[in-house]
């Protein structure tokens, strides 16, 4: 549908230098989109893109945040070299990947399943939906706090349940103190929080599907799973794309839960890039180094931005 407009716009632009009379009207039309963009874009360039570019520059300097940044003139990439030798950076990167993989699988499957289950007149459906969404409303500080009590080795609810199930009264698992477990324990909280959000997005998507279509496939003799597999899920494709994009963004920017629950500990085993960056910048006074982490993080997300843009580009060529 965008085509008509663009075709017309194209014709107009071509007409301009071609020789016809100069027309304010035509010029106005070519300029229209730019006028729409003028104010938002200026604001955005000043407050977001500007500081972002400055961050790129800072990543080549040593800066304590107070005295002027010192450019590493002898070896501008010094921060990056240090970064690739830094074991904590490697740990953080790996943790971000774990986070991302968990995020684009578990909440998506669970959220979708819940949405399917709740997208009918169940007794108390509204209340159930609200319950699953409730973690989103609680502040992250409170979430982190309550979960660190859930994970309490001696008196946490989780260990209590495990003790009951395994019949082993001496079982104490230090969910947040074991360097092997801690990241998964935090990711579990993040997933727990995310499920409700994904569920709402899918519920929204399901309401956009024409019930007649589903009835029709049932008449054709398809069973529930087949209907879901071949009709509903493909129709939910665009929602899934949005969900995945949001999940990737969230997992790359993961910060609050780690910062509240462990601050990356014990000894960096639950560090993620955003958190490591924050500690370097605001705890250790190394803004230059932390900018380098940010740039790398940005470059990683760039891959996903391109995949996403390519996806919509493909999609929209069909118009």
């Amino acid at each position, binding site marked *: 549908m965008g085509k008509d*407009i663009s075709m017309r716009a194209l014709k107009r632009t071509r007409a301009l230098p071609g020789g016809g009379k100069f027309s304010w009207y035509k010029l106005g039309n070519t300029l229209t989109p730019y006028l729409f963009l003028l104010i938002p874009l200026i604001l*955005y360039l000043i407050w977001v893109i500007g500081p972002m570019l400055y961050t790129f520059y800072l990543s080549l300097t040593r800066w304590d945040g107070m005295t002027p940044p010192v450019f590493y003139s002898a070896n501008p990439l010094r921060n990056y070299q240090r970064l690739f030798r830094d074991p904590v950076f490697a740990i953080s990167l790996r943790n971000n990947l774990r986070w991302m993989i968990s995020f684009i699988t578990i909440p998506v499957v669970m959220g979708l399943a819940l949405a399917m289950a709740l997208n009918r007149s169940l007794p108390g459906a509204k209340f159930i939906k609200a319950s*699953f969404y409730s973690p989103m409303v609680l502040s992250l500080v409170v979430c982190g706090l309550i979960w660190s009590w859930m994970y309490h080795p001696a008196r946490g609810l989780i260990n209590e349940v495990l003790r009951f199930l395994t019949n082993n009264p001496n079982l104490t698992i230090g969910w947040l103190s074991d360097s092997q477990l801690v990241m998964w324990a935090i990711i579990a909280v993040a997933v727990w929080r995310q499920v409700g959000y994904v569920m709402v997005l899918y519920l929204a998507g399901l309401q956009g599907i024409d019930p007649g279509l589903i009835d029709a496939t049932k008449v054709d003799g398809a069973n529930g799973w087949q209907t879901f597999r071949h009709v509903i899920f493909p129709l939910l494709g665009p929602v899934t794309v949005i969900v995945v994009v949001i999940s990737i963004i969230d997992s790359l920017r993961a910060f609050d839960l780690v910062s509240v629950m462990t601050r990356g500990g014990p000894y960096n085993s639950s560090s993620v890039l955003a958190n490591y960056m924050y500690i370097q910048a605001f705890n250790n006074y190394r803004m230059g180094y932390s900018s380098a982490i940010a740039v790398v993080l940005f470059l990683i*997300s760039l891959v996903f931005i391109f995949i996403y843009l390519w996806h*919509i580009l493909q999609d929209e060529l069909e118009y």
Partner: protein
Amino acid sequence: MSTKQFFRSPWRVLGFIVLVILMLMWLVPFFSALMTAVRTNEDIMRRGFWALPNEITLENFRVAWDRGNLKRYIPNSFIITIPALVGTLFLSSLSAYALARFRFKGNRFILFLYVGGMMLPFQVLMMPVFRLTDALGLYNTHLGIILFHTAFQLGFCTFLLRNYMRTVPNEILEAARIDGCSEFRIWWQIMMPLTVPALAALATLEFTWIFNDYLWAIVLLQDDNLKPVTAGLATLQGQYVMDWTVIVAGALIATVPTVILFIFLQRYFIEGLTLGATK
């Protein structure tokens, strides 16, 4: 389907039981937050946090309100959130309209800028943005933080609204064009009313985000008279002493506006996200 009908199949009964168990798992933390907020710190210290409280007290809410000085901070939260929210929705609907409805030089690139900014880990921008705000003379003013939030949220809003606006059938707009409407009028009188569900959905999300922001508030504001409620809540955390009962009570107070907004806009929330997602 009535309840009775629904439970005719034993599988459904089983499924429903599983669902309810899951739901309880999701509610436990919320419930324990409420529990914590009505207990005393000493009770927790002595009997652990999973024990049922001996007595229920609303004292924590009062202490959070007084010590956190929430009366002073809450109005600030609205003074910051509402203009930023209106500003970002208004401006992003402008840019989304341009990006969704016109093919012009730089369209893709500008979209890329918006999506890219959305992906950026924002913590790193803190010092540069602080420098900029200070240089513009906006440090420690509401205007500074409002402008920043407005600008920073433009990426996500533009991205979502653009997708949404592409779903509006072209015929509607074409008809208006033939009638000789200018593009700005089409945007305001035709596109905007059609976009209301998406705007409402975004308003809910954005309100939650801006209202709950804390990091930017402490970097861009220095005076307690200007800071939002999140900053007031944070001061409940001491260097050594954490009055968890009071902190949780305060956090619960601060979620009230978000919950109210969510209840009001809930209908739109679902609808708005739908259309944007399924083209």
